[in-house]
């Protein structure tokens, strides 16, 4: 259960990052999800990405909705505040939290039911507002916690464990995020940690609305033949456009890769993303191109993964609202209250 704490002791030789934190400092409680759940791999990737970036764990706010995926923030960054909020409403809670204190890192964790069904509206509107966040959907195409109903990302024609065929069209959250103006859009697979970890790291460093759709097979209810979110299916149909590395405060190590296939993208905060291109023609700065590319591959039954789009100079909601640099939650009466002299003038104008 979630109240089972992990033992604190660890190997004395455990590697430390720039801030002196070990991997263990980024872990949370023991997962209560099913053994082998894709979500646990995503949790591991989040831990890895935060460790790699040398983030102070307590400076992250983890916010989720309701569902299996939304339980996972308890399993990483144990020294961060977490908020397991209301089904489908993570985006609004995160937006509010972000407005209150722009200095923290906001990690929104959601699922396909949480974001594509009940919370489709909030997903859309938080993206279009450009909230500075990393929005991860742990997408298994199924309602796991209520035992196997289809979600809105389940492909048409796919079969449930009970043998029912889905007749509704699927929502592709990546396509929607691109359309709505997300400034960092990626897809990955929970089983592909080498691709996922740098994607999460790059998303965290990105200022603006970062969205990552992570296909994450549900081993209990959606990992059978006929499912299009199973380990086997995704591995067979995965078409990666690129692999990337995130370089913070280090020289770009591009020498490992053949010239012409590496593209370095410098983000707003100075960090660099080195993209090892697999598809030589793919341009991650072309929103329209990304949309077309995605649609073309979807028609062929291929699941495109990698960094699909990034706008390194994106603005976020705080810039749109022109808010002060100081977090709003630290302001007190001396700066917020206009005082009695002003009130007297207001009174005078109302006579």
């Amino acid at each position: 259960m979630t109240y089972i704490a992990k033992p604190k002791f660890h190997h004395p030789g455990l590697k430390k990052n720039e801030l002196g934190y070990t991997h263990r400092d980024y872990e949370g409680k023991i997962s209560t999800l099913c053994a082998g759940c894709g979500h646990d791999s995503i949790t591991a990737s989040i831990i890895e990405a935060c460790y790699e970036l040398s983030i102070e764990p307590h400076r992250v706010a983890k916010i989720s909705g309701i569902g299996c995926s939304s339980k996972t923030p308890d399993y990483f960054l144990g020294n961060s505040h977490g908020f397991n909020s209301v089904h489908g409403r993570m985006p609004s809670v995160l937006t509010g939290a972000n407005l209150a204190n722009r200095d923290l890192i906001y990690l929104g964790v959601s699922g396909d039911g949480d974001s594509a069904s009940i919370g489709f509206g909030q997903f859309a509107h938080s993206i279009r507002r450009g909230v500075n966040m990393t929005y991860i959907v742990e997408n298994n195409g199924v309602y796991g916690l209520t035992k196997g109903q289809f979600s809105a990302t389940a492909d048409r024609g796919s079969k449930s464990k009970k043998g029912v065929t889905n007749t509704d069209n699927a929502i592709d959250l990546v396509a929607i995020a691109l359309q709505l103006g997300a400034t960092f859009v990626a897809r990955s697979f929970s089983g592909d940690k080498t691709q996922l970890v740098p994607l999460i790291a790059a998303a965290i460093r990105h200022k603006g609305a970062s969205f990552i759709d992570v296909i994450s097979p549900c081993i209990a209810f959606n990992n059978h033949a006929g499912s299009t979110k199973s380990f086997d299916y995704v591995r067979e149909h995965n078409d990666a456009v690129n692999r990337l590395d995130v370089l913070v405060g280090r020289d770009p190590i591009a020498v490992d890769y053949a010239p012409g296939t590496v593209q370095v993208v410098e983000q707003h905060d100075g960090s660099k993303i080195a993209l090892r291109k697999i598809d030589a023609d793919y341009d991650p700065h072309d929103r329209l191109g990304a949309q077309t590319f995605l649609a073309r591959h979807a028609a062929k039954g291929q699941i495109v993964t990698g960094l699909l789009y990034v706008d390194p100079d994106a603005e976020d909601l705080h810039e749109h609202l022109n808010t002060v640099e100081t977090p709003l939650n630290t302001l007190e009466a001396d700066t917020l209250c206009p005082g009695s002299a002003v009130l007297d003038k207001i009174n005078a104008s109302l006579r």
Partner: protein
Amino acid sequence: MSDKKPISSVNDFVVRFANVNGSGSASANEMFARAILRHGVPVSPRNIFPSNIQGLPTWYEVRVTEEGHLGARGGVDMMVAMNPQTWDKDVAGIEPGGYLFYDSTKPMPSTKFRDDITVIGVPLTAITNSTYTDPRQRQLFKNIIYLGALSALLDMDPKLIEQLIGEQYKGKEKLLSSNVHALHLGRDWALQNLKCPLGLRVKKSDKVGDRIFIEGNSAAALGAVYGGATVCAWYPITPSSSVAEAFTAHCKKYRHDPETGKAKYAIVQGEDELASIGIVIGASWNGARAFTATSGPGISLMTEFIGLSYFAEIPAVIMNIQRAGPSTGMPTRTQQCDIIACAYASHGDTKHVLLFPEDPAEAFEFAAAAFDLAERLQTTIFLMLDLDIGMNHRLCRPLKWDDAKQYDRGKVMTAEMLEEGRDFGRYLDVDGDGIPYRTYPGTHPTKGSYFTRGTSRDRYARYSEEGSVYADNMQRLVRKFETAQDLVPRPLQANAERPTKYGVIYFGSTSPAMDEAIGLLEARGHQLDRLRIRAFPFHSSVASFLAEHDFVYVVEQNRDSQLRQLIVNENGIDPVRLVPIVHYDGTPITARYIAKAIGDHQDHLKVTPLRKAVS
């Protein structure tokens, strides 16, 4: 022709303007009300408008009241009938002996009038058409022309109206002079062609004092500015939208850093009420003062989050500008109909703090106080306004602020306190008042973090489905609600001159009508002690008041006497002793209505004993 003597009254009458909405009449009508105020005579204006933008009937009613009765009076002494659509109803609504003012450009058949009223025809269209060629100008200046004619008929000082025009069009000389010109066009026509003044007159007085004239929504928004709200999330809904709009306007004036020009606030128009309350809860969880403004349908949508706020103990301020329900109801009509919906909002066992301001001055005070209460109690605070207070200009005492006041940020454990080794349990009742400490996210690298959830958990915020742990937490929430009793504004009691067994309880916008009704009831020989409830949970003085009286009338503006239900439920008293007096047709309650309802009941109680009658 009139067979009824024309009404004769100085500084005590009701003028109602019947207009078509979208015709630009609102500003001329408001100027009429303000002009009377400038004579030192209190007025109480009310907008009666449809849920529509252009073309439907709208009314603006001005009660001129030297005595300062600010509730609606009922009845119309003078009708300014500018809307052919509603003519028949408008003419029928005039008190016998009253006056009908109309545009006489086109002749009307005599059947369209009444014998018992004075009819005043002014050829407004003819005057405007001969003066202006632009159709837009014709429309707008027609309103100012009737204002001018009325000023002559009611013996108003034109200088005071000119002054108001001067203030309104300061720096726009062309508009200023053309408005003054239009005013005199109407005034001069009336002076030359009609017998001026009428029996209804405005006479200079000194009854306004230092009072201000403001809409409740604007005052509440200003309260949010003074109370330190930094995050506002809202979704447009009548009659609450003007709260967020006023907050935006006030913030633009008072909340920008003078050096950088940057905003010390964030306002988001949400995609719906769910997102609005979600943003408020996210911001409050993270330590900002946040609020939303909405009305009944919005409250219905927000209830899941309100339950989270209650159970996970996250501050939130919700301003509910009530309108007539249920469902879409009457969106532009007033009621006090969300008392139960707000007091017990959301599934499971919940209770919420409600504040009931009586006018804009209290709306300002309570709005500011709501943020202190929300952070102190770590729960949702409802500011219960209604359309009558929110969207009408109301004369009220000036707004006051004590510069020595610091915000009460509640129990927040800081990094220093954690460092000192203080025991942090997010749901641990350390002080016995049911209120635990919280930490803001990002406070300390290794101490004070916790996982917020809507599921049950123990005192240290660890997930638990143990029955005893759950019950322990629910009991603490009851304790916390008891603590709230002494923190919220107390009821105000006013006793009758002579001791009486009868009392009356009322709240919110009913206040001015109730105050006036007391006078009417006293004139009928009925003595009543009054208790104005200003908040829920009820202070212990409510129970004492109930104990001290045989019968207590509960006056409210909804069908099901919701406050009475709440009192019965929370105090466990015999419902028979609480007599419901309800008014719920969407118009503001009047003194006449209250006095009749209570008076009739009182007369009924005073049945002559049988033995006495036969002896």
